[in-house]
């Protein structure tokens, strides 16, 4: 079964709900190694995404992703605004104007999103950023899609890999963003951006089951 605009909208609503549920956790993660605004920024952004979808629901998956991108860019405020905004913008270009996405298209969208984040933030794996969750997610998604998995399975393996990837950021020393100013003191906590990426992918995957 393919992934339609309605499915993408359902996934994003699930994403908005999970971000709201984990708002305080993200604030706390960011408080110890950043500026404590990640939970608040993401919640504000995804609330805006959900409310925008109430008033204007585009008709293709790509158009939905593009609307999400512009909403996040304009409402998030912190570094995650341009990063998530770029990810959704590139994912939107990757899927073009297809009306339904198969597993390969979902994997390609994730891949383009990752490339956008890397280009925008110039982070590499091991820098203790959302890239540490996205790289394993994209690898797992691409492998599953290559074996013929549909969108549900592709998102499920991506979400599982992202969770493991996010957890792997705990011992790392941050080399990007505000946390990098803390040096060694940034070790011992999961990166908030990697955590929110894993949360979102899990919500997207669960919205399909």
């Amino acid at each position, binding site marked *: 079964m393919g992934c339609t605009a309605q499915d993408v909208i359902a996934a994003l609503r699930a994403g908005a709900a999970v971000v709201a549920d984990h708002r305080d956790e993200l604030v706390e993660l960011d408080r110890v190694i950043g500026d404590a605004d990640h939970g608040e920024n993401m919640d504000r952004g995804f609330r805006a995404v959900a409310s925008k979808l109430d008033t204007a629901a585009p008709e293709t998956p790509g158009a939905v992703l593009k609307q999400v991108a512009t909403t996040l860019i*304009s409402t998030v*405020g912190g*570094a995650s*605004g*341009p990063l998530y905004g770029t990810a959704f913008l590139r994912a939107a270009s990757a899927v073009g104007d297809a009306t339904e996405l198969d597993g390969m298209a979902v994997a390609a969208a994730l891949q383009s999103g990752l490339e956008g984040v890397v280009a*925008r*933030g110039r982070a590499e794996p091991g820098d203790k950023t959302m890239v540490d969750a996205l790289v394993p997610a994209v690898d797992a998604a691409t492998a599953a899609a290559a074996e013929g998995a549909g969108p549900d399975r592709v998102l499920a393996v991506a979400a599982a890999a992202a969770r493991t990837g996010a957890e792997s950021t705990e011992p790392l020393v941050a080399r990007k963003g*505000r946390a990098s100013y803390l040096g060694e003191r940034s070790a011992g906590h999961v990166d908030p951006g990697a955590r929110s990426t894993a949360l979102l992918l899990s919500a997207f995957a669960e919205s399909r089951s």
Partner: protein
Amino acid sequence: MGVGLVVVSHSERLAAGVAELAAQMAPDVVVLPAGGLAGGALGTDFDKVSAALSDADSGSGVVLLYDLGSAQMTAELAVETLGDPTRAIVADAPLVEGAVAAAVEAQGGKDLDAVARAAVAAGVGSDIEQAAPAGETITEELELRNEVGLHARPAALLARSLAGLQADVRVRLGDAEADAASVLGLMGLGARKGDRVTLVASGADAGEAVRRVLELVEGNFGE
């Protein structure tokens, strides 16, 4: 109209302050602040940056300067989403020095690339020595009679007066020396009213350079 500047900061007041400082050096350059979130909170606002980017462009393009990481990302995203991304450059430069250097360069009528390069070069520091151009060397001693000495506006006037000349011009005060093309270098000398500075000019246009500086000093920098 010349190249415009946009100052992107997490702080509304920081952006406004940098824009004010840079604009003082370059009265004809459009320098727009894009700082903080709507309502004054700290953060970078994509819509604000995009609006400033479009307002600062009079046709010659815009150079954007930023403070911290996400300001850079927001600035780059604003450029990427322009109809024509080649009309703007996000300069990887120190915010204050870069904005001032870019403003002075833009005031001199330079193009987009040159203004962006001036901003970036402001962060490189003085460890890059330029080879002295060939030609005569002229040394001239001058007394500063204007009220504020070589402070911001006179320093900018002096640096700007040398734009386009084939000359290496140094200004000495006691043991300190500054490149006359560097506004911040000149300000760093701390030369005040009544101080005697030495001008050392070399290169093909050394004579013209000295003549221009003398004219400024004798006219008390228009004060």
